[in-house]
């Protein structure tokens, strides 16, 4: 490949003194100074969280107010830092959701271990565990940093997805029992 030697333009007298450039620099910094600041003053002003952000993992209800988690423990199994501990529990027969059979008796996520990888959300067959927009977890003790079931539902709230998988299944079973097609 041919080498092209570019002639360096000789500097003019004023360029060699640097003074015009210093003056221009001073003008730039002065302009910067009178402009409004660009800082986000954090606790009062919050950054806008983009959709799909992977924040603190939470548990969610479905629109009917049913706990979506069925304590299958897949998330506990897949969790790389072993931050999740689930104690499964039966749903008693008189409960309106008795047809779901199981729900967690206790669900703990240790936020000192959690690495926000989102694998629990990925693996969940019920779409019950979601990494949502909450990004700052603080506490004074180790115990405070463990989110229990109550706190997880508080953080998670209700998601407006209308799958109603279990209700549909129950309805289908009932239809079958009444002598449907199957």
């Amino acid at each position, binding site marked *: 490949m041919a080498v092209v030697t570019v002639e360096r333009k000789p500097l003019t007298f004023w360029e060699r003194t640097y003074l015009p450039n210093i003056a221009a620099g001073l003008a*730039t*910094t002065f302009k*910067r100074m*009178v402009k409004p*600041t660009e*800082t986000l003053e954090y606790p009062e002003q919050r950054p806008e969280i983009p959709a799909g952000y992977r924040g603190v993992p939470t548990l969610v209800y479905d629109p009917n107010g049913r706990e979506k988690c069925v304590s299958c423990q897949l998330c506990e199994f897949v969790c790389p830092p072993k931050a999740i501990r689930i104690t499964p529990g039966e749903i008693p027969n008189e409960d309106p959701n008795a047809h779901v059979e199981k729900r967690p008796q206790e669900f703990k996520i240790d936020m000192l271990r959690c690495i926000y990888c989102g694998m629990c959300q990925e693996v969940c067959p019920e779409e019950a565990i979601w990494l949502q927009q909450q990004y700052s977890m603080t506490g004074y003790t180790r115990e405070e940093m463990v989110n229990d079931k109550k706190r997880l539902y508080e953080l998670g709230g209700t998601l407006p997805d209308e799958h109603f998988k279990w209700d549909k299944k129950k309805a289908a079973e009932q239809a079958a029992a009444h002598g449907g097609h199957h």
Partner: protein
Amino acid sequence: MFDFYFELPLLLRLLLQGTAVSLVLLPRAPPCSMAERKISAWIQGRPGPNRTKPPIAGFLAPLGLVASIPVLGTALQKLGIYQLAADGGKFTFKEDPIPGHVNKFYFVLAPIASMIPALTTVAFVPFGAYFDAAGKLVPVALTNLDVGLLAVFALGSLGVYSLILAGWASNSKYPFLGGVRASAQLISYELSMTLSVLPVFLWVNAPGGQGTLSLFDVVQTQSQPGFWGGTWYAMTMPVSAFIFLVALFAETNRQPFDMPESEADLVGGFHTEYGAFKWSLFFVAEYAHMIVGSGIFCLLFLGGWNPLPWVSFADLAHWLHFADKPLLMGLIAIGLFLAKVGFFIFFFMWVRWTLPRFRYDQVMKLGWQKLLPLSIANLIAYALVIAWIETR
């Protein structure tokens, strides 16, 4: 009203005056440091320290009460005034360790030595003027020696010792390099600085005059009637002013000349081993140098307390009818002078956040190969011009 003051013994009066002026200079450092932080923040698009707020309970209650005044309190908080108080408290009360490997006597001596030139140079700087009973303009100053400027230079040149001592007594590598750099740099730029003011005094000392280096007389020659009498020397001698300003940056160790303490290559330079109160003394000394240096620059090249070129302070006093009130006149003169000094303090900080730091060989090359020949050429040129004007 103030007769009782003039009945005090002379020695006591001088002592009071000296203490008063030094005490005005000493607490300049905290506001300057806050200004430094605020200006750096604004230039970088940040708000700067604006959170600190004293509690209403406890021993800080008086400050806390001020902070809870609706608009004023919040404004002070946004300006970081309470951060200032917190910093001051921290520097005063935090532990002040002396490392085991230092030369203890000189290690403690160095910050104290830094205060001597910082607090004494101001004695020779006039900061205002007023008409006395006889209608003569007299300076507001501790002393008005006819060798005023030389005295400032002489005492200011002692400032290098605190840096050398600090660097040497710290007995470790980086402070030592900082001390060596400081001594070489300060001596190099003193030459150009002294040479750059000579044209001003060649012009001030017209043949047949008294022969003076007094800063007050320099201001007087910039406040005469007529076109040439009213111009400031920054306009007639821009090269002198420029050399003086550059040398001033080097003498006060400010960016882009802060070689003695450049944190990128020397950790903290000569004050690496210092902490807490001793470190803050170096800090106070640096700001005191900046204030006195800017004051000298304003007196020499920017007309001192004259409000505008061609508008002398005496004229202003006559137009606004306060020429017969010495106290008011003195205060207004001091205010005008301090406004100019304040602008220069701002300028120092503005330049700091604009220019990158030089390399050390560049500093030496600039000082010896550029500024020194330039200032000698400048001196010869002005000597010829002034001789031509005088003999015409």
